[in-house]
């Protein structure tokens, strides 16, 4: 192994993950996933899970004695207790290895790992996960948010609806599976305001509809409505920025219907569509390490005194030093 290599720590929500990457590839990655016994993610319990497993995950990642030039970690956005647990480990590791610490923005890490793995160059990114739903594109030193959810993330909306319908966490894949058996469309609220979208009204309406209509039909109508909103705003951002590429990122990006819809939109607009392989879509340590590497090479590091986590860290606040 030559060149720079960075250890990255991710643990903003239910997935705890550590990875070492160099400029070419992911060298090693280890993950421990918190699975709630019932219901959704409890922030404190997820943090306790991370605290119990982080030493082990880091030890396994480092056991081959790979060189580490810096330690990168998710500084936000995410669940406060989870972020604090992982940041504490990152600070301790950086001090004990005597290498720089690099606090990274979790949303931007999703974009950069997607660009790295698909060889997209300057895309409009649709980033969809449990807590986040944003349309982003790079312009003049920042990743700008062109559109975003006004209330909850698309993944949370799917989970909320799925739980009420008696489906277990995470609900998204189960909704997707059931939707395939649908035979009719049920009208649900479609909310796009300018460049923003909203999902909480849709989730509530779907809950009510599931008492009257077959569940597969409600699942399908929910997906069709929510994804049409996301694709519409993505298309607007493409038209507005004149960019020629669309990148999909985040855990909900695993949904094949969403991919299909984006693919059709991109084809009709004549732009390229990129999706990284599944392991780089959901939260992963490699994306944090990769963004850490880009930042490290641009000369960036985070002093311990400035390494406080920020649960509401917006991607457009981060100054892009590596582009």
């Amino acid at each position: 192994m030559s060149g720079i290599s960075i250890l990255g720590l991710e643990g903003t929500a239910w997935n705890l993950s550590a990875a070492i990457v160099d400029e070419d590839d992911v060298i090693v990655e280890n993950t421990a996933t918190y699975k709630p016994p019932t219901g959704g993610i409890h922030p404190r319990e997820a943090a306790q899970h991370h605290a119990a497993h982080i030493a082990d995950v880091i030890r396994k990642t480092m056991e081959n004695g790979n060189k580490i030039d810096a330690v990168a970690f998710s500084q936000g956005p995410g669940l406060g207790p989870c972020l604090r647990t992982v940041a504490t480990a990152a600070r301790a590791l950086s001090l004990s290895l005597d290498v720089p610490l690099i606090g990274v923005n979790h949303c931007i890490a999703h974009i950069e790992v997607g660009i790295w793995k698909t060889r997209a160059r300057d895309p409009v990114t649709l980033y969809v996960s449990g807590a986040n739903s944003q349309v982003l594109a790079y312009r003049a030193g920042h990743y700008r948010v062109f559109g975003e959810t006004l209330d909850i993330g698309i993944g949370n909306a799917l989970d909320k609806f799925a739980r009420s319908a008696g489906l277990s966490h995470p609900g998204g894949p189960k909704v997707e599976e059931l939707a395939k058996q649908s035979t009719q469309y049920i009208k649900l609220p479609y909310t796009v305001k300018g460049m923003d979208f909203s999902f909480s009204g849709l989730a509530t309406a779907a809950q009510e509809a599931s008492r009257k209509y077959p569940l597969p039909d409600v699942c399908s109508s929910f997906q069709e409505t929510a994804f049409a909103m996301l694709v519409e705003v993505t298309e607007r951002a493409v038209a507005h920025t004149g960019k020629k590429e669309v990148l999909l990122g985040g855990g909900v990006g695993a949904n094949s219907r969403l991919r299909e819809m984006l693919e059709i939109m991109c084809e009709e607009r004549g732009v390229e569509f990129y999706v990284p392989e599944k392991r780089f879509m959901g939260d992963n340590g490699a994306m944090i390490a990769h963004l850490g590497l880009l930042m490290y090479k641009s000369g960036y590091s985070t002093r311990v005194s400035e390494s406080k986590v920020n649960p509401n860290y917006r991607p457009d606040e981060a100054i892009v030093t590596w582009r």
Partner: protein
Amino acid sequence: MTIIGNGAEAVIALVGNTVIKTRIQKHYRLKEIDESIRRDRTRTEARLISEARRCGVPTPVIRDVTDFEIKMEYIDGIPLKEIINTALSGQTGELIGCLHNCGIVHGDLTTSNMLLKDGKLFLIDFGLAYLEKTVEARGVDIHVLFQTFESTHTDHEELISAFKKGYARTFRHADEVIEREKQIESRGRYA
């Protein structure tokens, strides 16, 4: 027929002195969703164009509305973008004051969407317009316009201050909105 515009959701054609705006089908979404969105938005847009005119904001006269199509008067004016000065910016402020006073948010205020014809300023393209009276929505509305000033006109500071004066002349909640616009700017969104 000449195509004069091709946006994310509509094609705009000119036939004689009539503009035809057609919302195009999107194959990525279900037919039911696609048609209901296009129908609702076409109807809303036509309604808000007429509503704005009743509130004293010059807009094109609507000639016909069908499911996905609006036929309207062609305004043969000069885009504000090419001729803006502080006097016209003040006049723009008065115009947007009237619009907001009327409860309408335009959603896409740029100097390309304002045309000067016979000394009168017309507002066009209500494709993203909606009815809303919150300070936030109005703040975003004028913020988007200030961003156009900043990106395309070197004397943007004078233009913005002239706009604010005009806006306050016709809209009594202007101060609140101008205050909110500063906050919106500091959040750094809406590039």
